[in-house]
């Protein structure tokens, strides 16, 4: 057992170091993007790949975030996520066309942001200031915002003639009104659980979109070039 632990430690260290490095790079990228939401012209594949990597990172962190959250909520918190809560964004991505699905991803990202912020606020009142849960929640919020901006840029690049609706296409998912403490705990758990599920779907979706859209775009470009 000890040997197992010893073997695990280097992996953890390496993964943490790698994660930290990637995080720094991505945060820098996110900051540059989110500052003015200025989209640079990038090849379809690379921009989607970049977003895919960011999505994977956020997804990975969301798994850890949910685990940390449950540990921070006291006894029986494992069962909190099974309760039903309204007004929390649905993790499913809707739409038939790639443009619709990408727009759904974007709108979901935007929809999750206020919920993450609300959960962060609520937990700030429930956790000690030194709690790692608060920093992880804050990180998740910022990265999700960065991912939304990246998706926005990709959408504008791939579908320049399709405007982004001012409101999310899935409809408003406003944050819930005042909740008691127990409801806050349940709410946070459900939000984070759906957030994790959403990121998992986004990962698959971006992978699919990359193979579909970028290939088709190239074909279209080649076809246009012929004419």
């Amino acid at each position, binding site marked *: 057992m000890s040997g197992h632990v010893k073997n695990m430690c280097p992996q953890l260290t390496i993964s943490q170091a790698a994660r930290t490095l990637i995080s720094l790079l991505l945060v820098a990228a996110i900051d540059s993007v989110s500052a003015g939401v200025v989209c640079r012209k990038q090849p379809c594949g690379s921009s989607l790949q970049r977003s895919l990597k960011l999505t994977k990172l956020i997804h990975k962190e969301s798994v850890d975030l949910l685990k940390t959250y449950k540990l*921070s909520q006291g*006894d029986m918190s494992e069962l909190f996520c099974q*309760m039903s809560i309204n007004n929390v964004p649905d993790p499913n991505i809707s739409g038939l066309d790639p443009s619709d699905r990408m727009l759904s991803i974007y709108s979901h990202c935007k929809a999750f942001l206020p919920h993450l912020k609300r959960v962060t606020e609520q937990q700030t*009142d429930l956790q000690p200031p030194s*709690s790692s849960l608060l920093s992880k929640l804050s990180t998740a919020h910022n990265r999700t915002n960065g991912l939304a901006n990246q998706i926005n840029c990709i959408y504008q690049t791939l579908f320049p003639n399709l405007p982004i609706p001012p409101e999310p296409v899935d409809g408003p998912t406003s944050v819930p009104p005042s909740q008691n403490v*127990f409801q806050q*705990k349940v709410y946070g758990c459900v939000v984070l659980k759906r957030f994790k599920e959403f990121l998992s779907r986004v990962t698959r979706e971006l992978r699919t979109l990359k193979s579909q859209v970028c290939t088709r775009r190239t074909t279209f470009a080649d076809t246009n070039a012929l004419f």
Partner: protein
Amino acid sequence: MNSMANQDNGSAVVSRCHVSTAVAVNHRLHHLEGSNFTTMPSLFFCILLLGLRVTESQASALAPPQEVRLDADKETQTLSVTWEDGHASTFDVEILLTELMEMVLNETVGVTEDQSTGKHQWNWTSPVPLECTSLSVKVRSRDGQDVSEWSSQQILPGLDLPDNTDSQMYPEGKTVPVGSNMTFCCIVEEGQQFGSLWYKDTLVKENMLSRRTYATTMTNQGPSNPSGTNVVCSNEKKMIIAGAVVFVGYPPLPSDLVCETHDLISVDCQWSKGRNTYLFGMTRQTYYTLNGRNCPKARNSNMRCGLEHWDGNWTLVARNLLGEFRLTDAAELGHRVRPVAPVNLTTPEVYSWNASVGWLWKDKGFERLSLICQVQRTSHLNSSTQTYTGYGLNTVVLKDLQPDEKYSVKVRCGSQKNFWKWGEWSLPLSFQTKMDRPVAPDIWLWMDSDNLGRVLWKPLTKSESHGQISGYEVILWSPEENSQQTLTLPQSVYSLPINVTDRGSKVTVTVTARNPAGVSLPANVVIPRYLPDAEDTTISKVAFNGSGFPLSWVAHANASCVYVVDWYNTSCTQDCNVEWTRVAADNTNTMVQSGNFFAGVRYTFSLYACSSESTVLLERWHGYMQELVPSRTVPRLSPNQEGSDVQLTWDQIPLEHQRGFILGYTVYLTNASHLALLANITDPQLTNHTVRNLVLGSYKFTVKAYTAAGEDGGATVSISLSYWLIMEILVALGTMTCLLIVITIACYRKRKWVKMAFYPEIPEPKLPGDWGITQGTLDVKPSPHSMVHIVEDSVWDSSKEALVTVPEEDEEGTGDEAADTDEPASLRYYNQVVEEGSSSQRRPHASDSSASSTGSMDSGHTDVTYTGIQTSACSLAPMAHFQPQPDASQCVGGGGYRPQMQSASCPEEPHTGPEEHLQAPVGSFGGYQPQCSWKKDSPEADGDGLDQTCLGSPTSVTSSQFLLPYDTSEEGEEHPSSASTWFHNLLTGKP
């Protein structure tokens, strides 16, 4: 009174019936459901009683309360009941669970009328959250035993009403103190079934309050987590349907409020947080105010709050949801001065042994204050703090510094008058002192022999060198010889071999160290006399006591300067590592400690008394830091049989292998794997042991040396006891016998070859007639005309030696003994080799040149002269040269019977001495050569002539013999008579 009591009792019964009926009706109306009336007779009875009661109340003077109103504070679970027109001051209040009609409270309370409003108000705190279920309340006035009618029943609706379908749990988010009791209720969603209630992770027992409401009461609650304690309710499917969080903690309890000034102006108050409240979050955390001003920076463990001006009195209020706590402090400014840290430390002057340090004050007020300051200096050696005082102190001088040493100093100060606390330490300042000349090195001399030794000195430490040592100077000075030798050595050398031969009996060694700042004082030592262990110094044993070797001695008068104890590995012979320590002259004991002591190594400690005149060895010790068993066995163990005893001898174990003081030896008899102790030799010098009275057999002995740590592995030796000498002789004889037998057999089997090689076949002469060789004695009778005259003539002595005549009787008188006889003796000749004994008897004759050929007559000193023998042809031929001799009788008479070998020498024999004859070459004619002229095939050998010529010739008698030439030497004569005879017999198969 009794009637009143009965009446009252009857009233109570009626009242109870009224309530129950009303509640039942109410309940059915309220919830539009319920069970059928199954107790119609009892209902009828109640109605009857109600009629009676109405009749009675008409007679009561007390009016029932009117306008009963219920107000609920759900946060505090307080129910406020107000009513009017109650002119009494005492009221009965009844509270029931509306749905189950279970009594919650039935109490008589005293309530006075509010003169301003004319209402009565009574507050009740419910143990159960007011949201849990509906409560029914009614009031009546009481004046002693007189009571009014009950007021109309008022219902406080709960949240379990059917129109509120969701699952809920109460209370939620409350903050309560540790140890409090709390009741939680769960309202199950419409259409679901209640499952269970959990407090933290514990399943708790519930009580039913209504159709949908279940409650549990937790007592003596412990502190909760930062996020609170979860209480959850699950349905029958064990799914959580509702939950609540309760925060259980403590009210704040800070302590130790202290206010002080750092700049002589402002105030800085600090306190300790005290007990953990277990309450976190914006609403539940503790908030502090100091003199009414918020302390937003008082968070976590940093419990401090500041004010801009000195007030002299301070009140700290700590407050959270569970309560508040107040702390106060008061002091004058001058009593609470804790200066800030000095800044800009400098070292204006730095020397070898001292330096000055200065600093500045950020606040000018300290320049006008009497200060006490601490300066902490830290070097690689140690750290020390010195205290200085002064008005507006900003410079101090550091003394007792070490030369060439790096120091780090920092300063803090306090108010000298009404000292309160030390201020903060300043930032450290580093500086290095200047170099100075080194101290004298610690030197010692270790003599290997009378004249050879080494000067040793210890490397100077950083605190002794006072700078980088550049080298050492060693001076050998002999006052008697008035000679001085100076040697300069580099800084890495700490010893110098010396030879004090021809330097006199008193030689002083002086060593000085040198660094860039100068030369040290000289260190002197007088060379001690070399004294090995064996010489006239007592050697004691000293035991290691865990920390060192304790040595003590009797004070010595010559130790005017100091005692020196040196030690080294006893088994070391060359370039030993010598350590020493100095003991003050007034001490007579010391503890020798070193990091170089090892277990199993014997150390020699020598105590010297040093003075300026001499160095004298006083005492010597041997000791082990830890004794071990010997690392090897006794060498050269050998047994020595002494009859039935066995003496075992061995050598002592070499010193380096002893690893402890050898206390003795144990001798064991080894039987298989078992060791039987034979002897325990407690004298370590005794290295032999005799085991006595052993019977024949093999023995194995083991000898072990032992120390205080135990025995070594043991040396083993074997011995087999037997009559080994006899056995050895017998073996040798047997071997020789076998060898001879083998040789004999070999020779016998190869006898033909041997015969051919060493004794070739000599053809027998063919003789006419019957010349059979008889084995018997050949009796020769002198023929009548061949008379043998025995004459005494010594002339022929030497010529008669070749043929031996043996008389019939064995003569006793051989040698020089004379035997006189005149009778013609019958001569007996043997055609065989004469027995050795006979030969030996004749040897004197053979060697005696005067002996005649008729040795048998030697006893009579007579010679046999064959006067009548006819000269045979074979003898005549070679003797032809004798014919011209004028006196034949002289020849015959002189020669007598003459074998062939003598024929040639015959004429000359009278003229030659016996010595000359012996020296004559055998090859010519000096030796007896049978058949020298015989040729078997020779014509000369045929014919009658041979019969005539050889008849009677003695040559025929001896011709069949294997005759070897006679050796001229005396010893050579033995061979034909002994070995050759035996050998011949062997070869011929004769006995």
